[in-house]
């Protein structure tokens, strides 16, 4: 580079800099920011990768929008049933159909538990999350990721992305629904603090459980389509068959087999509502008490949740450790 300095000004008035490689003179960011970049990239990729996922996501966003608006209009719910209504809206958000309800008998309206949203959400989560590891394996990019990130950072990024994704799909609409509903009722939000806390806790818990599950599937199978298929089949058929088994044996504990029922029960447990009814319709429901010392108890549900999280984490860590050289 030729420079000639002007007498009065120190900036160069002439130079020649050929087009070639330039070194990088900037700074490197702290390592945790890389995990954030990975989370961001994976989140955006859920939209980018599959046309079908885009379609489903758009439909669910629109549906959620309507149910949120709807919740402001249902102000005729009263008589102490508001809390039940709120609880039910959270619990049934991901269920396949409302087999379990807030109390045995009693007339109330479920706020925005439009059946079908559960299936849509499960499909969206399955399709979006199925590729997190499977696509990387197929595209042979794990190697290049690991040449820049540590294994822990890589996995944290993936887990963070799916957990965030599920929370956006679940926590956000449910939170807004509850907020607007309470607002429309003219209630004091601080009176409902335990509701808010329980709802947030539930959403976080299930985002971890469902997130880990789809990630484990994604890392064990070869293609993303296998993972999303297994995920979907497990949820749908698992729920149907689980429910059939439970009805056949008439056991409370076996309620937990059906993934859909499990999610509903976990919600009620997080929200502190142990007085439930199970069965279809107002008149056919049978009492289900989670705190009566008999049958299914609330701590069973918690236990199962924790066991699931541990099991899935172990499976994930195990598979990460054992990624073969081919899969890289």
């Amino acid at each position, binding site marked *: 580079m030729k420079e000639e300095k002007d007498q009065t000004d120190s900036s160069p008035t002439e130079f020649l800099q050929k*087009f*070639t*490689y*330039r*070194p*990088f003179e*900037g700074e*490197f*960011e702290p*390592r945790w*920011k*890389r995990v954030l*970049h*990975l989370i961001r*990239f994976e989140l955006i*990729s859920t939209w*980018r*990768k599959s046309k079908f996922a885009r379609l489903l996501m758009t439909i669910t966003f629109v549906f959620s929008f309507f149910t949120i608006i709807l919740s402001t209009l249902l102000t005729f719910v009263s008589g102490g049933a508001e809390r039940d209504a709120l609880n039910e809206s959270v619990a049934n958000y991901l269920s396949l159909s409302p087999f379990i309800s807030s109390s045995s008998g009693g007339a109330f309206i479920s706020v925005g538990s439009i059946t079908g949203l559960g299936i849509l959400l499960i499909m969206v989560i399955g399709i979006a999350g199925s*590729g997190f590891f499977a*696509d990387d394996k*197929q*595209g*042979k*990019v794990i*190697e*290049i*990721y*690991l*040449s*820049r*990130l*540590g294994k822990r950072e890589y996995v944290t990024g993936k887990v963070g992305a799916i957990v965030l994704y599920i929370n956006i799909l679940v926590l956000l609409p449910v939170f807004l629904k509850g907020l607007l509903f309470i607002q429309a009722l003219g209630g004091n939000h601080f009176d409902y603090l335990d509701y808010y806390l329980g709802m947030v806790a539930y959403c976080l818990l299930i985002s971890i459980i469902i997130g880990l599950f789809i990630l484990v599937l994604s890392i064990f199978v070869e293609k993303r389509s296998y993972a999303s298929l297994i995920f979907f089949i497990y949820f749908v058929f698992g729920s149907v068959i689980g429910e059939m088994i439970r009805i056949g044996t008439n056991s409370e504990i076996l309620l937990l087999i059906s993934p859909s029922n499990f999610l509903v029960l976990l919600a009620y447990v997080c929200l502190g509502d142990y007085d439930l009814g199970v069965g279809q319709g107002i008149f056919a429901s049978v009492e289900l008490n989670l705190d009566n010392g008999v049958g299914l108890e609330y701590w069973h549900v918690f236990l199962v949740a924790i066991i699931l999280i541990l099991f899935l984490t172990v499976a994930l860590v195990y598979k990460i450790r054992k990624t073969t*050289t081919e899969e*890289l």
Partner: protein
Amino acid sequence: MENILVIRELVKSFGSFLALDDFACDIPKGVTGLLGPNGAGKTTLIRAVLGILPFESGSIQFLDYELPKYILAAKDKIGYQPEADTKILKVSAMKYVTHMATMAGLSRNAAKQRAFDTLHYVGLGEARYRDMNDFSQGMMQKVKLATALVHDPELLILDEPTAGCDPGSHEQILNLISDLGSTHGKNILISTHLLHDVEKTASSVVIMNLGKMVIQGDLKSILRKKDKIINLQIRVNGGDINKFAKLLQENDFEITDVSETISCNIEREDDKKYLSIFNIARNNGMNIRMMTPYQQSLEEVFLAEIAKNQRDNNK
């Protein structure tokens, strides 16, 4: 510091298969070729240096970093071009390189600028917004090279950087490697089966086999036959080549082979002999079309060393 990588007694096995068997070598600064038959352990070695695969025992010293203790810091100074084609669904070259730059620790803005720069440098400027999955092999290799360069590392590890390239891209990539090595002072380790590439770009080589180092050193000295006697390749115009060979023999030249060219042994410094070849040609109505000393190629040295290594192992 003379060496960019110092490796000692590296051991790595996969189940019962010993991939790296007390492997040791010194990789000097500059461009080095890493050669070896399939299964020699080259990829395993590369992955151990990059911290992608853990190794059982031994030590790796990269600049000031002792691995595996400081592996994360070391990764930031190494750029890797893998052999496999890296594909992410529906992503343009620009997005891919930018993303990988952020993975290496750059901020989003710095990453974008660096990706832009490096993609242009490797010659993909025009195609940078195209979907990577449509790329030809030559373009794919360039994207991978750009990815390896984006965080301006001190050491580039390139695994088969020209595999599958059409001749045009092949030459471009070799020129880039030479440019990076000589003009920009980058240290480059090239693992490849295309020995000709190494001949053109590298200043030193490491040959390995069965998890062990066979020979390492300066490329020129490995190739240069320091013998006093060299082997000349000769072609003539204006006459039959066999006739010329006979004439040379009659004049006390040692002929070793005659096919399309004559191979003949001669003392390197014997100017009189060179001159008499021309004289013999002219006296018989011919002229010299080609006369050049036989250059030992890296491939020959490679094959000879591996053969020797196999023999030693079989003892």
